[in-house]
């Protein structure tokens, strides 16, 4: 009796997930637009100054920033759960390759939004994350240096490319990729209200994390939580391998899943699954290592 109720609840949650995602996305976009008016993407210390002013000086800025962070993280988590669910259910076998690629791209854009948002904090961790991103992109043969310039700027313009990506380029792309979902699963008022209340309550109660200051030791710096596994790999493996080749290869493999058949599909599925498990373990291990030894 209890197990069937739990199963029903879980199913309802799964069914509500797209609505919650879209509600969070709307809140994230709305709060993001308001924050963008106060954000100063150019200048050295001015970026962090503007972030801190939003957090502590601008009326209700602290709330907007927390809300933006919370809704953005919720979107990312739900996007991972959503993609993971369809991957585990092996729906790629009956999905059109273009549709499946759209799912993969949507997840990738969500992750990029998380990463660029992390950089835009403007603190020492943001600078370090941006530097790592630029360095990884530079590892790509031929087009690396050019691509790196599109991701992170130089000097006082360091934060300008990620700002443009985060505010003007990636959100429209995400909305385009979600186009069909938005039309079909426009969130109900109740779902939107519940999501807004939960995120609003969280933003009121949980304080914003402290920024990393320039004097903080680099050894203690950590990237966004979704990229901790990558950070752990970068400590041991060549950047080109673990920062470019491996993610690109796995992403390609994920995208081509619908066109693979039989044992090849199973092998690809298992490989991706094994990597996901390993990545999760690496991330967890890194967190434990950082908290104990660093």
């Amino acid at each position, binding site marked *: 009796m209890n197990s069937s109720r739990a199963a029903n609840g879980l199913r309802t949650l799964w069914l509500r997930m797209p609505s919650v995602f879209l509600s969070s996305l709307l809140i994230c976009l709305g709060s993001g637009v308001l924050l963008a008016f106060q954000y100063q993407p150019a200048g050295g210390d001015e970026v962090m100054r503007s972030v801190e002013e939003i957090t502590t000086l601008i009326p209700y800025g602290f709330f907007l920033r927390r809300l933006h962070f919370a809704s953005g993280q919720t979107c990312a988590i739900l996007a991972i759960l959503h993609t993971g669910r369809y991957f585990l259910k092996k729906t790629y076998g009956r999905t059109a390759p273009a549709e499946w690629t759209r799912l993969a791209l949507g997840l990738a854009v969500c992750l990029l939004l998380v990463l660029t948002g992390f950089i835009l904090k403007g603190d020492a961790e943001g600078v370090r994350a941006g530097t790592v991103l630029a360095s990884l992109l530079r590892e790509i043969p031929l087009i690396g240096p050019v691509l790196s310039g599109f991701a992170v700027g130089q000097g006082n313009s360091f934060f300008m490319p990620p700002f443009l990506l985060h505010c003007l380029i990636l959100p429209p792309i995400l909305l385009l990729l979600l186009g069909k979902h938005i039309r079909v699963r426009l969130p109900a008022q109740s779902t939107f209200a519940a999501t807004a*209340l939960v995120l609003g309550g969280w933003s009121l109660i949980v304080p914003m994390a402290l920024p990393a200051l320039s004097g903080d030791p680099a050894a203690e710096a950590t990237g966004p939580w979704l990229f901790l596994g990558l950070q752990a790999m970068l400590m041991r493996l060549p950047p080109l391998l673990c920062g470019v080749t491996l993610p690109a290869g796995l992403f390609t493999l994920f995208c081509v899943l619908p066109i693979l058949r039989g044992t090849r599909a199973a092998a690809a599925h298992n490989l991706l699954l094994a990597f996901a498990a390993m990545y999760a373990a690496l991330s967890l291990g890194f967190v434990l290592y950082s908290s104990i030894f660093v």
Partner: protein
Amino acid sequence: MRIVLTLIVVILMLGALVRTEYERSLARKDVSEGCLACHAEVDDPDALHPVKSFGCATCHLGNAFAFEKRRAHQGMVLNPGDLRVASQTCGREGCHPSHAERVKRSVMATNTGIIASLYRLWGGSRGEDQPLDVQSLMAWTGPKSPPLDYFSKLCGSCHLWRPLGEGGGEFAERGGGCSACHIIRRHEMTDPTRARFKHAELSMRAPMANCVRCHNRSARIGLTYQGRLEDDGYGTPHEDGGPNQRRITGGRHYQELIPDVHFRAGMVCIDCHTGTELMGDGISHKSLVGQLEIRCEDCHAPQFRPEAGIVNLSGASPPELPSKNAARLSALNGHMPSPATDRFVFSQKGSLLYALRLVDAPSSGPTPGKAALYRKLDGAPLSYAFDATPRPHHALPGHERLSCQACHSPIMPQCYGCHITMRQNETQYDKLLGRETSGKWSEERSYARFETPVLAVGPNNRIMPASPCQAEVSVFDQNAIFRPLESPVASLARAFDPHSTQKTSRSCRDCHLETKTMGLGVGRMSAQKKQPFRSAYDGNRSGFVQPGSPEALMDLSGRPLLDFVVGGPLEKASLARIRGVGPCLPCHNRYEDSIYRNFADSLDRLGSRRASSCFMSGARPVQCDTLFRDNLSHRSPRPVVSGERFRDMRISY
């Protein structure tokens, strides 16, 4: 119902949001940095670091952009001078980057000399991986050898890496990196809201108290300079029927003796010691000696050089002329006039002695020059004359190796019988680890004297006053049983400037006729070939650690009796030459005496009977060689203990 509940939740949340926002709005002010929103009325640490220009976070770090205590205080440091953060605070780019790095390598931060001396006490050997400076010792996680444990628990409170305020009482005042010298008054926080308070006062005019806070033990130069003799704690002479109130750090009593002549002139440590000496020259020296650069001659026989062609001695970038450097430093000092001359004196390492100014250049004839040394604390000039060429007694042949202190430091603290006990069954606070660890060290001194020093060969092969350091260690294990094999006994000695300089020098007799000064110890010289010197105290018979008297540095054959950290006792040949002059002194007691122009030749002439007879009192002729023989059997004076010879020199007793 659901709508009502939702509305209630929404209203509650909005209320909470508005209230939080209201509370936050109270802290917001139109200020250049967030810190000043709360700490609105803080006075300037000094004229050169105004809060209006620098704000708080430039020195104290933290998050200057935040208007919220939790965020603003993140990463903040109370003492910016702390060497752990100095490269981000005082030493940040654009401020004093080279100074912070130099200080970290200076002996006041590394304590390399002290640690090396302790290794020496315990046999002189040190493992390759064993730390030799404070910073590596602080990071040392392995078991501590006895010298390291001793240093950490007893000596470890006086180094610049020590965090300011750690521990209680006077310990809390020591250390603090740059602040150890440059903070001349701690902050005064009376307002509980911390909105207004008097900031600690910052200055390059470091008062003597900042130096003596640490430099009051071991060589005790900080005390000697002020004419203070640490006594044995009886508090005598009593005042109002009880112990007197004269106390120095650690509650120790002291007697007042005659201070150093420079102290009497109102000079403090920084009037002589240059910034290069105090903050280091960027090299991690093995001991203090390597870091020193100032010499008495720099002021008393100054070589004023025209500044033309001299650049970059200050290390400034871009290079600056000495006159500009002097003008800048004088302006930073705030009490000193800008130099009106283009001739300056430089130390042997090239430091500009910017407080020393030429008033009148000496003529080539007998007219001396005039110079003025501006006191750094108050800018008052101390004028004095100096000669173009050394005076005859300063150029006496055979005295080239004498340091100024050898003659002009008539008194020196000398302590004997330092007994160090280590009890492994007790615990003690490790000042470097910041916690109690097993093993407790304690020190007891047998007795100390404040008397005429022995002369020995010091750094740079110069003859200097020396002081012994006798240490006997007793280690007791966990069962309180004495462990003789782990308990070293050492008789060390070191030549150094005791900082007791007087204008009047010691007499010729003090060196040439006094066996103690020569390093033989108190005793009796005789013409007997079998036993030309008899020590007043036979250490061998008494079971003492060294064979001669406690003051003896060597025996008559020149064999060292003590282990010298730097230098050694006088060489056998030097000793023979010094003794050789003694018999002549009763009659030939003036520097100008012709026999001293070429003393070896004078002795030759005496030996070959070519010398004329000399006359004692009356008309009875006495040949010099007879007098020579008679004088060999003189008895050296009894040791002069404090309160006898210098009673007339006391300021108050």
